[in-house]
């Protein structure tokens, strides 16, 4: 089963004619993603890697159904692209672009919620269901189909973890990079819920980092709702403390947000937190052989 993205998911690529859009369209196609349309305003009639390009969803929808869309357009155009996709009825929207203003993301996230669209990103590596399809930039050659669900706040660190899982013979059901922006689409909670309900996922890896309280909240959620084993890693354990968001930030964060706080919360929820990434597969293998 996996979650959110499958072999037959019909995917559109927004910004397909751009430098990143065209390159990763090639990579996604090579991986087997069912890309049915590219969208770049003003470029209708072109083809990118054999994918027909349309000016708009309206035009594309005359020729194909679209279930999901991935956005590679520059930051200042992301809001427009995202609204177009949501209004056109996609069910899954992945935004790779980094540098999107917080207030634009907020509008997108609220609209997505209103319309029941699952949003991943922005500023994220996307999602990959090994052996089926990928939307985003996670290298296809490092994943392998299996039973571990991966969710991560960090981009490149996600690859690191996946690579080590694969090297250890631990395949993945689906890997989701939720992105590191302060406002973003689905977070740990939603991903954990999806993996909990997915019969193909047996264990879950969660990659967090310092700052914010998402990991603490995830720990609470795991305690109450997740019965599958979860293993976590927190990046930035030795990083110097960052600037606070004024007193307001300090009040809200309290003692949370630090690596110690996150590790403590996760441990209390029964989640082991490893010192290095290479320890993650070890724990998963132990769980598996129990």
């Amino acid at each position: 089963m996996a979650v959110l993205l499958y072999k037959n998911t019909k995917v559109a690529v927004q910004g397909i004619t751009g430098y990143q859009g065209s390159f990763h369209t090639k990579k996604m196609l090579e991986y087997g993603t069912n890309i049915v349309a590219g969208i770049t305003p003003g470029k209708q009639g072109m083809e990118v890697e054999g994918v027909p390009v349309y000016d708009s969803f309206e035009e594309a929808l005359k020729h194909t159904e679209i279930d999901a869309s991935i956005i590679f357009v520059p930051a200042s155009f992301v809001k427009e692209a995202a609204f177009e996709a949501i209004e056109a009825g996609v069910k899954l929207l992945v935004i790779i672009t980094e540098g999107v203003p917080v207030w634009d993301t907020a509008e997108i996230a609220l609209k997505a919620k209103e319309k029941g669209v699952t949003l991943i990103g922005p500023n994220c590596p996307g999602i990959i269901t090994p052996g089926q399809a990928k939307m985003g930039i996670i290298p296809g050659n490092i994943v392998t189909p299996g039973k571990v669900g991966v969710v991560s706040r960090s981009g490149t660190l996600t690859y690191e973890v996946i690579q080590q899982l694969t090297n250890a013979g631990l395949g993945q059901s689906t890997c989701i990079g939720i992105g590191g922006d302060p406002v973003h689409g689905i977070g740990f909670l939603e991903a954990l819920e999806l993996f909990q309900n997915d019969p193909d996922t047996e264990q879950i890896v969660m990659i967090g980092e310092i700052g914010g309280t998402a990991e603490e909240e995830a720990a609470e959620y795991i305690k109450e709702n997740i019965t599958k084993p979860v293993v976590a890693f927190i990046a930035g354990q030795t990083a110097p403390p960052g600037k606070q968001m004024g007193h307001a930030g300090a009040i809200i964060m309290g003692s949370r947000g630090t690596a110690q706080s996150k590790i403590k919360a996760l441990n209390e929820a029964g989640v082991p937190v490893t010192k290095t990434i290479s320890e993650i597969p070890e724990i998963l293998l132990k769980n598996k052989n129990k």
Partner: protein
Amino acid sequence: MGMLYEFEGKSIFKKHKLPLPPSKVVTSVEEAVKAAEELGLPVVIKAQTLSGKRGKRGLIKKVDTIDEVKEKSAEILSKESDGRPIKKLLIEKVVPIKQEFYASVMVDGSHVALLSMFSPEGGMDIEEIAKTKPEKLEKIMFPMDIKPFGYRFFPALKRQGITGKDMVKLAGFLKKLVEIVQKEDLTLAEINPLVLTEDGQYLALDAKVVVDDNASYRHPEWKEFTSLIDRYTKEEIEAKEAGISFVELDGEIGMIACGAGLGMATMDLIKYFGANPKNFLDVGGGASPEKVSKALEILSRDPEVKVILVNVFGGITRGDQVALGIIDAIKKFNIKIPIVVRLIGTNQEEGVKILKEHGIEAYTEMEPAIKKAVELVKQQKK
């Protein structure tokens, strides 16, 4: 995270007609005297710096005479804060204060919410109030697209015993603060203290404002906010201009990573294996050869960097582009320090090949590469 100086934050408040005491920004004792004369004594002299607790650190002084203006402004201008000289003072007219409040609005990203906070016990130690008298701190959460209206704040103000005209005025103030955050691409606007004057006015006595850096392309007026530049070292600015995220630290290993998470994990492992990173440097996703070359240039100029460690797991970043950047930098800047490269992911083969042609054997795994870099540092120390 674009934190602004007090006077810059206040300039945003002023644009939206949030009431403020009269004030002037100055850069010298002479200007301070002139400003004090124009505003009328007594005035408060406030150092413009990004870190807090200015009062306790002697960076805010109330003065009653011109002689005191001269003395105290000279004194403050001779000090440092955040490791940098204080260059600007805000000279502000003293207002007769009846009561001090705390008010703030911040983006709570994980809930796509705005968090508005208010306390009738404002002043220096609001964090203490939050801990010891949480019932004195109101936290009101709104969706980010809320239409802010005064009545939304009435229940919180009433709980704090504020009623009648004062409730209406304060609600109007808080409403405006939310509007400002929404309209100006801010992620924080904090006023501590917000004061009620003897003559019944509510004024923002301080301003801590954080702008969303990602929105700077649509705010040309932010170019005038020197706080967005002053907080960086020359090298950090150079990096920033090249689109590189760079923070200087104390250590021996110059580290280049693609991605902040990978960068942090690399730092963690450097320490774990027994050395220290000289910096945090993230070239971001999809780095061009020019960007990688610039990163190496910056690190190679630092005499304390003993080893350079490049850790790339290509997703949107392509291995060949990174390799080209490394080779280019070595040649152009004649870099002699040892460079350890870990390269994997998108276009890995092309990248490894390019490096090999120039005599660099890239690692594919992260931990051995970091171990190697730490080892090289230890060898040099001997």
